[in-house]
């Protein structure tokens, strides 16, 4: 890697100030960023660690029933601490990578990175969560802007993410055999006012909502409500691990399994 400066502030305000430097970059768990640096694919002037900021750590249940997760909370903590309040999200966090990754990687880092095969974006979009930053609140529907792009501005920090808790939810992840990221992952959440279906791993445009499925499920919530519904393979990802058609097919299979898990 190239050399860089390192800062570990203890408040959000200090972190924002530190990130004001040219080419400074936030460091979460480093599970994506450090390998990128090692391969010399990025050359930040300074890394600002989020890990010393107490206000960005941990899970808390809000009065309105939602669950709020600090932006620097590790996947392992989420897997443990939302197990009772939001079990589908806990299950998602518990399926990310391996124990080492889960004990370093953070929700903020994952969501800011918006890898098209990552799990959290599906959970965030599927839950209709709100991304809270140092500057504003962004609805999930307005946050994910395509592969590796988000609504975040330069230097903007995800300080927490607030998840409304659905009546029932399920994340169905079909593993890419090598990376074990999602070849296709479907997060389905059933709220009193409707069903949300978010799909990761499949699309050239990153995580997306499968609105036809949502509409069909709003009418009747049962596995064969999807009969005849097909995702158009045209803008699915095709690679070594699966064709466009295969991914489109898996979206249906995983959605059906998510419905069954919510019954």
């Amino acid at each position, binding site marked *: *890697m190239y*050399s860089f400066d390192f800062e570990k502030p203890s408040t959000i305000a200090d972190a924002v100030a530190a990130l004001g430097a040219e080419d400074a970059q936030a460091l979460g768990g480093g599970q994506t960023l450090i390998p990128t640096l090692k*391969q*010399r694919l990025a050359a930040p002037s300074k890394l600002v660690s989020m890990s010393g900021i107490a206000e960005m750590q941990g899970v808390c249940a809000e009065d309105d029933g939602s669950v709020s997760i600090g932006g620097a909370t590790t996947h392992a903590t989420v897997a443990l601490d939302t197990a009772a309040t939001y079990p589908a999200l806990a299950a998602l966090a518990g399926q990310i990578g391996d124990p080492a990754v889960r004990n370093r990687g953070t929700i903020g880092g994952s969501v800011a990175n918006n890898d098209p095969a990552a799990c959290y974006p599906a959970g965030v979009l599927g839950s209709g969560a709100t991304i809270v930053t140092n500057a504003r609140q962004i609805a999930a529907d307005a946050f994910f802007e395509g592969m590796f792009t988000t609504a975040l501005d330069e230097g903007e920090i995800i300080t927490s993410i607030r998840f409304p808790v659905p009546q029932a939810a399920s994340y169905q992840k*079909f593993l890419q*055999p*090598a*990376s074990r990221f999602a*070849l296709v992952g479907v997060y389905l959440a059933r709220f009193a006012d409707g069903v949300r279906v978010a799909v990761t791993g499949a699309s050239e445009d990153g995580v997306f909502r499968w609105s036809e499925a949502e509409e069909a499920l709003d009418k009747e919530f049962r596995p064969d409500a999807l009969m005849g519904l097909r995702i158009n393979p045209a803008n699915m990802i095709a*690679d*070594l*691990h*699966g*064709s466009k*058609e*295969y991914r489109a*097919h*898996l979206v249906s*299979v995983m959605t059906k399994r998510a419905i069954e898990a919510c019954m």
Partner: protein
Amino acid sequence: MPKDSGIGASSKRREDVRFLTGAGNYTDDINVHGQAYVHFLRSDIAHGRIKSIDTSTAEAMPGVVKVFTGKDFEGVGGMPCGWEVTDKHGAPMQEPPHPILAQGKVRHVGDPIAAVVADSLEQARDAAEAIDLDIEELPAVIDMKAAAQDGATLVHDDLKNNICYDWQLGETDDAKVDEVFANAAHVTTLDLVNNRLVANPMEPRVAVGEYKRGTDEYTLYTTSQNPHVIRLLMCAFVLGLPEHKVRVVAPDVGGGFGTKIFHYAEEAFCTFAAKACGRPVKWTSSRSEAFMSDAHGRDHVSKIELALDADNNFIGLRTNTFANLGAYLSTFSSSVPTWLHGTLMAGNYKTPVIQVNVKAMFTNTVPVDAYRGAGRPEATFQLERVVDKAARELGVDPIALRRQNFVTQFPYDTPVALTYDTGDYNGTMDKLEAAADLAGFAARRTQSEAKGKLRGLGINCYIEACGIAPSNIVGMLGARAGLYDAATVRVNATGSISVMVGAHSHGQGHETAFPQVVADMIGIDESLVEIVHGDTSKIPFGMGTYGSRSLAVCGSAMVKATEKVIEKAKKIAAHLLEASEADIELKDGQFSVAGTDKSVAWGDVTLTAYVPHNFPLEVEPGLEETAFYDPANFTFPAGAYACEVEVDPDTGQVSIEKFTAADDFGNIINPMIVDGQVHGGIGQGIGQALLENCAYDANGQLLSASYMDYAMPRADDVPFYGVDHSSQTPCTHNPLGVKGCGEAGAIGSPPAVVNAVLDALNSGGKAVDHIDMPMSPSRVWSAMNS
């Protein structure tokens, strides 16, 4: 009763204590005072002509010691190939030069162009980025069949085409083969791919070169399976150094699987550069670098045809294979698709007419060489897939069809150059049927179907030629080396023993199993015997470890040296006991005079050898013997495997539910280690069958260049294995009656897995007759839905 020590005991692997507690000494743990670091600037395109390389900026960068390019190696030899294959017209293979650093052209992604030696690795990398390259990109030669066409772009401009050799084995008369097929009652044909693999040993390759000006001596520390071979090749062919001035050390090595047999450019570079820079030079491969610089494995595209008569007897077999050699000839690459592959096409069957055709191709890809099994998995895969397909086409039981065609009389001369000394294929199949509970399969299938899964059973037989190899035979076939091995048994004064062996242990457990043999022969505790390996300055000579040869070849040398030691010790004992040498018996570490109660202990005799106050005058003091052993034939481990899979019809996901191996390895020294070797081999075979795929795009970019895309098998991808080694026909020509077990699992398992998946799909009404490996969920689903 299982034994608790000596031959046949499952002694615990003593080396694991240091491996598992972080006390191993791997090459990267070796740091030599004053060392500098090298970073290789590697080609990021598959094929190009080097117009210019400007290193002036790089040379002036901080910490840079020296920058090397191909020019610095113009007076030096290239990387040699150890086996000259003669093509079917009697001409030698085309053998292009393989420079240490690219000269004139780059020929694969990863081909080293320049090397920067600097005080630190990061400085070397910084400087490498400042090297100005002007390379004209040329069309990449990737597809083997296209590469064989007239007028194809040439990987090597000085060769007449991209075909290294067009080789044939078995029946030379095409008309005779045609006639067999014309008269056949049934012909089964199959086109298949044996997928390219990256060995991925846990420890990446490392080399540290050191040069001592005062004595003009070099030391190379390297991750090698065979340090003497590296020394020989590097000294004699590459750098032109006298061997007595060069020491090669391969300390603890974290897995090899074949890919650490070969002499690599980085080893020669570090040795050369240590002198040129006046400093030790260290290179540690990154994992990404390993993907594009370690020799790859397999990569065959084949058509196989099997002819059967009206009674389902195999009457003819013909194969046509394109074998990828990559951009350059790696050390043993030429032997893999030929003498390690064509010779195995008879398999376990008495097919009378066999013709094997192999075109070996140069392409703009990483060189391909031996990987666990080396040629034999490629042979087994073709044969066992076509036999299985024939059984399905004919509607006969795949086991019965195999049994009907088994070789049953030994020795057996195959039509493809080998003589099987011994075996019992029906007996081994009997063991498999019992161990795998094949009778219970139907019930297990019903249970799977109740869960909505398709269940399949796949059977496979294999034979391999191991204990590589009789030097006189391989010499006739083109090997440029002998394949004997050597051992020195050094008995210390107090009776403990160091055995210096030419075999190298990098996971095989030699440090445990070899002492079991020596201790058993003498009747002393195993802990008194230790082996020394991996250092040319300590061991007499050795061709190293590969081809399941360590115990069969080096172990035999060790037995012979131990016999010499015992013979001499008996002379000393006879003197001490005032008896005739002929009357001395050695048992449980005691020399006794037959028929009397007079005896003397091993330790007293060894002490006498070194404190010869009361000593036979005609005997030399000391107790140390060396033996070289050249095998009379290959050994022929064989086995039968059964794999049961479940396929999820919704997604095409395959899971291995049960895997049973029945192997005949002859005599077994340490059953636990043998089980472990088989487990590991099957794991790699399952990896090949379901997961691993080294893929290039049409431009020669490696698509699976990291673990993000190259799927290694993980613990949860494999089942608990059932392993049965009770079928034992001891090898007839080595002293231990052993055959070798290191590669069997990787050879025998891929066809079993594929056969099982196809059985599952067919049981679900999907008439699929082949899926190429790896059978990823996507490929299985596509096959089911096409």
